[in-house]
């Protein structure tokens, strides 16, 4: 019953979806690694990005891929301003407060979206929306292939940025040693805000890549935040490579689960993995203990 002709497309489908999940999780794991908090507003901010792409398409006729030039920088600025203007001010320097502030932010943002945009499902119609490409005998929608390539390139660029630039080094330094960072003249508040901005900016990239094959509603972020959180735990909190591998694993598990159990039960595998990881390897695949 399970022959390769249906398994291969399912796996490919899972890998492409997983790469996007990984991209969303990268932002989450970056923010976690530096600020030591789970950004509960991550899903809501992805939704903001998706609406931005949608409205740029509807009112200005901007193709979602052209929006890559506009939405990610705008989301970066939004993230930077949120951290500097709201989150750090409201947190009074305590990590557990930041958690609650981001949770509150997500509720406010979602309800604003509900009020302004209604709960209708919105999509964009592009010429390539239903085109497919042949990958070794399996047909994948073009938007998914583009999303996969875009996610991989973005993740690589982010990794290079973290490894090779002074700001990337400063971000990693602040993540582990705030006092040492202050002593070499790193502006720690600025680094926090940059990390948050980059994490949210990456969501902007994900939004541009996602919308041609997906939809947007005010609640669209819920499904993604749960999956992204699972990926971050699976890969190891704060680990970049872990998030990438975890994203692909989760995507494939979801696709194969969907194939065998049906679309509605497909996500069961994800949460089974989540529970197993918490039970047997709580530090994640590539995380460090303690």
């Amino acid at each position, binding site marked *: 019953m399970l022959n390769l002709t249906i398994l291969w497309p399912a796996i490919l489908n899972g890998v492409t979806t997983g790469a996007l999940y990984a991209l969303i999780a990268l932002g989450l794991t970056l923010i976690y690694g530096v600020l030591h908090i789970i950004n509960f507003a991550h899903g809501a901010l992805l939704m903001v990005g998706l609406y931005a792409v949608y409205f740029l398409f509807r009112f200005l006729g901007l193709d979602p891929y052209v929006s890559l030039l506009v939405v990610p920088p705008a989301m970066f600025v939004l993230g930077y301003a949120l951290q500097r203007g709201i989150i750090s001010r409201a947190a009074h320097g305590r990590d557990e407060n930041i958690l609650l502030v981001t949770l509150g932010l997500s509720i406010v943002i979602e309800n604003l979206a509900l009020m302004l945009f209604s709960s209708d499902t919105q999509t964009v119609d592009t010429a390539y929306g239903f085109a497919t490409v042949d990958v070794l005998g399996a047909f994948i929608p073009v938007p998914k292939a583009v999303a996969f390539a875009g996610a991989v390139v973005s993740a690589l660029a982010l990794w290079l940025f973290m490894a090779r630039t002074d700001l990337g*080094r400063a971000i990693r330094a602040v993540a*582990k040693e705030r*006092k*040492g*960072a202050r002593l070499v003249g*790193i502006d720690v508040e600025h680094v926090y805000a940059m990390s948050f901005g980059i994490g949210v900016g990456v969501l902007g990239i994900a939004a541009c890549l996602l919308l041609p094959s997906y939809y947007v509603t005010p609640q669209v972020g819920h499904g993604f935040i749960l999956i992204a959180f699972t990926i971050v735990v699976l890969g190891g909190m704060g680990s970049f490579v872990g998030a990438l591998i975890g994203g692909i694993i989760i995507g494939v598990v979801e696709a194969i689960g969907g194939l065998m159990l049906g679309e509605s039960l497909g996500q069961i595998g994800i949460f089974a993995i989540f529970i197993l990881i918490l039970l047997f390897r709580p530090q994640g695949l590539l995380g460090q203990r303690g």
Partner: protein
Amino acid sequence: MLEVSALRAGYGPVEILRGVSLDLAAGEIVALLGANGAGKTTFNGVLAGLLRARAGAVSFEGAALPAGDPKAALDAGIVLVPEGRHIFPNLTVRENLWLGGYRRGRANRGRNLERVLDTFPRLRERLGQRAGTMSGGEQQMVAIGRGLMAEPRLLILDEPSLGLSPLMVEEMFALIGRLNGQGLSILLVEQNVHLTLDIAHRGFVMENGRITAAGTAAALASDPELQRSYLGV
């Protein structure tokens, strides 16, 4: 070069420094001695801008130092190598040193890195190693190397020999002497009183947030009161 007068500082309701005055001339090694909890680390924190003083003044090279601003202290050339090192454990040795020139000494980073590696040949062999996986002595070298990358005018060393093997302690003090020989002014905070007074020009003794004795290193070393309380003679 450094002029501190009647400095008061603390945390919350607790006052740690209760009027500390200290001075240091260019080219000197000045020792700051005292038992644990005397306020030495708090004093360094104020100089490096990590902590805001409540009263008193710090003047460095003729200009008043802005309070509680680590970047201003660094820009003036005051570089603190803190107690406990506070290097970046997840970064490589090279990255740790490179970040030492993140703000000050940025223009000469490549040249300064070479000089630091000439000073610490052992670090040259370990450039790609994560700093957190090194021995205590090597981590201390990284911490001092990172400080030197910022082209210090005044280097503050807080307990550089703490936790090191006796052999490494000797090596550390020899190094401090060499750095001073190259013209670097050093404020040396130590509990190892013997070795410190051997290489220092002058010293101050701090007790309960106050300076209780001051003088040349030789005078301090022969002070009977000090010998009883600190030198264990």
